[in-house]
């Protein structure tokens, strides 16, 4: 039997949905902190996500163990760590050379990061959208985290910046997200720019370093590192240059950057909660 569509209740429900959508949008835009309703829902979801993610990780480990992938992964991780250590030595030497040539006596060189303080956290969920790149971790304000802190891998590779924090959860916007811009420099030559996630015409995501000087001389495999700010320290590895070209204006150069860390393989990340900005 055909029912009437536009009943009073249906109109009321639609009106409530519209008003609620407008209200939450305005609240999110006006309030600088995480809104309380978002905090409440995420706080409730966090333990469930942690449990399911832990079960998923365990199941994946058993699966990989059956096919002997675990041994190969450990071997691969050890070799990657060795290579990254050697690359860091090269970057340090190039930094020394550049600073000596430009006679910048006030620059403080930092090779060892004894001043860093880390908080480790497991990833419990990923954003379910095709258009964003965010991860949620199972630690929040109670562990000393706050918005703007930088997340890195155990090898010092930048993963992203904390964009939202709750009591026992935090959301990290990764470097592949188009809304995040990180000031960076090419370690060998010192040219500075801004690294941002973007998409190619075929829909794939890449990192792009924008606002490079037109006269910049760049080559593939040049390493890109953070320039440092109040939010994140300098010298953290973002990736390597893979291609260079002129941007849409034809004035500035841009470069595509291959990220140094594989976001799809992350399980545990480290948040830099304190560092010496001197």
């Amino acid at each position, binding site marked *: 039997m055909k*029912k009437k569509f536009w009943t009073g209740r249906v109109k009321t429900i639609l009106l409530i949905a519209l008003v609620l959508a407008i209200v*939450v949008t305005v609240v999110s835009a006006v309030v600088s902190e995480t809104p309380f309703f978002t905090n409440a829902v*995420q706080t409730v979801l966090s333990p469930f996500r942690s449990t399911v993610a832990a079960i998923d990780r365990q199941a994946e480990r058993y699966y990989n163990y059956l096919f002997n992938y675990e041994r190969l992964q450990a071997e691969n991780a050890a070799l990657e760590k060795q290579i990254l250590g050697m690359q860091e030595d090269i970057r340090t030497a190039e930094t020394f050379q550049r600073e000596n040539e430009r006679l910048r006596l006030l620059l403080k060189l930092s090779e060892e990061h004894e001043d860093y303080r880390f908080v480790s956290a497991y990833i419990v969920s990923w*954003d379910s959208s095709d*258009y964003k790149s965010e991860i949620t971790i199972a630690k929040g304000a109670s562990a000393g985290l706050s918005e703007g802190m930088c997340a890195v891998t155990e090898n010092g590779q930048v993963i992203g910046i904390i964009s939202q924090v709750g009591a026992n959860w935090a959301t990290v916007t990764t470097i592949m997200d188009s809304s995040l811009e990180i000031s960076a420099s090419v370690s060998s030559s010192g040219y500075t720019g801004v690294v941002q996630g973007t*998409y190619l015409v075929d*829909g794939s995501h890449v990192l792009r370093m924008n606002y490079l000087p037109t006269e910049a001389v760049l080559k593939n495999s040049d390493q890109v590192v953070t320039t440092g700010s109040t939010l994140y320290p300098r010298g953290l590895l973002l990736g390597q240059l893979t291609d260079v070209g002129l941007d849409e204006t034809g004035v500035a150069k841009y470069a595509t950057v291959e990220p140094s860390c594989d976001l799809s393989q992350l399980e545990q990340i480290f948040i830099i909660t304190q560092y010496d900005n001197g």
Partner: protein
Amino acid sequence: MRERYKKPIMWTLYGVLFLLCAVVQTSMLGDVRLFGAKLALMPVLIACVSMHQGAERGGIYGLVCGFCWYCSGADGGALPIVTFTVSAIVIGWLCESFLTCRFATALLMSLGAAAFSQGLLLALKCYLGQANGSFFRVYLIGTAASLLACPLIYPAAWGVSKIYREQKI
């Protein structure tokens, strides 16, 4: 079981179903891509529940799920609140008036709900400059792939709806 407890139990179980889908989509399937697209379980859940509950109750369920999905940090801002509500009302009305509650209907309604909500999301992203036309292929694949969840979600929603059936006068 006393009649008066059946209704709250049914809606509680629907809430648990939402929680399960939300956690599975983000924690287990969050970094999984099928031919480059991510699955969208929420529209399938909304469709399967509102099929059995009708336009009004389904619309309220869609509204609450949309709000909770927004609060869980999903993409699209407050858009899910509107799209889930509209999808639920339309699907509930269609099933009350014209269609029968069967699995084939569930597939069709899930496809419609996924296409509608994900389509509006893509349109919003294109308008904001965060996506372009090349994502249309991803949108199509994601919408179609989301139907893979229907064989799991529809029986669960159907089973929960059996707990309480309003007497139609």
